[in-house]
């Protein structure tokens, strides 16, 4: 298992983008044997990465493993309509994650993020 150190303060956009890029790179290699895909904030999951919805289920698991239940991709996407999901960019997901972690940090008075990784 990847024992990435758990952030003690909410990570910024750059750090989250780096995390998510790592997850997508791993997924694309594991499932499709691709190892040369460029990923940035404007990359779309559907058109650019050609991910199938079952790949997003895997990504949801990786996000929860990394950030805990604060980041819930299923709920995030369930609130969108089909066209929004088709147009979804990496940047929009990064923004959702950063905001979710900030909100948790603001709420957490003394409990640091210590839940065990899945």
């Amino acid at each position: 298992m990847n024992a990435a150190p758990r952030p003690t303060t909410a990570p910024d956009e750059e750090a989250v983008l780096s995390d998510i890029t790592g997850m997508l790179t791993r997924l694309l290699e594991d499932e499709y044997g691709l190892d040369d895909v460029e990923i940035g904030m404007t990359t779309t999951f559907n058109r650019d990465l050609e991910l199938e919805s079952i790949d997003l289920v895997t990504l949801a698991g990786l996000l929860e493993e990394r950030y805990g239940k604060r980041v819930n991709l299923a709920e995030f996407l369930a609130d969108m309509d089909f066209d929004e999901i088709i147009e979804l960019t990496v940047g929009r997901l990064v923004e959702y994650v950063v905001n979710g972690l900030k909100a948790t940090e603001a709420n957490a008075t003394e409990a640091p993020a210590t839940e065990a990784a899945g």
Partner: protein
Amino acid sequence: MAMVDTGQLRLHVQRMGPRDDRPATATVVLVHGLLTDSLASYYFTVAPSFAAAGLDVVMYDLRGHGRSGRPASGYTLDDSVDDLEALLDRLAVTGPVHLVGNSYGGTIAFGYAARRPERAASVSLVESQPATAGWARTMDGVLRQVLHELAHNETEALAWISSNRSRNTARLARGAARLARETTLAQDIPASRVLTEEQIRAVRCPVLGLYGGDSELALLVPWLRALLPDCRTVVLPGHEHSVLVEAAAAVGGHVLTHIQQTATAETDSGTEAGTKTEAEAVTG
């Protein structure tokens, strides 16, 4: 990613539950459809709201689909009901469950309810029907068509889909083509053992049938209502076969209401599901 070994193959399972570790009020099992489908059709649509409503939600990829194992053969309806039965045993889900199935997934869900009536609290069929001789003929026609297109015109067919529908649909079609080519699915499903009218009638738990108004399957409504002892039907106008994904909120709402009403009826009667249905048998 959770993989469960049934002894036959590995099935990909996802589970969602109520937040804050509240105990779940009941278990609902969601079964997806054929070829282009996977548990993702539930995961990003109705599953989060079911979990938020207090249900323990179990989703899995059918054999050959999504991230589950893909044996070369063994794709009859009975094989898939066996998988569901083994999966719930492995997960130690032994009490009655609410079954929800989309398209072929509903045929599997109903098959499970017919085989294990004591374990079925309710069934929701979304654009789906119990396995009958007519169902097998329809599946045979559809799957023959798919195989024919793939065998003879795959490149052209995919190019047509790409330019007339979307790249997304073409990608899904490519996946379906692989599944049909690599396995005996298209031969096995039409050759499945089907249910007799008596076996269908013997499913006494509450059944919800939900159809798109523009789908041919909506024509089944009178037949289903006449046959099943406890059946409600809902037709959503303006939708076709993919009503689950197109109108997820409406479908989810109807299914959740069906599940909650079933639970309330059981509590009111103060008896177990099995004995309650005995008392109502005369209306069959």
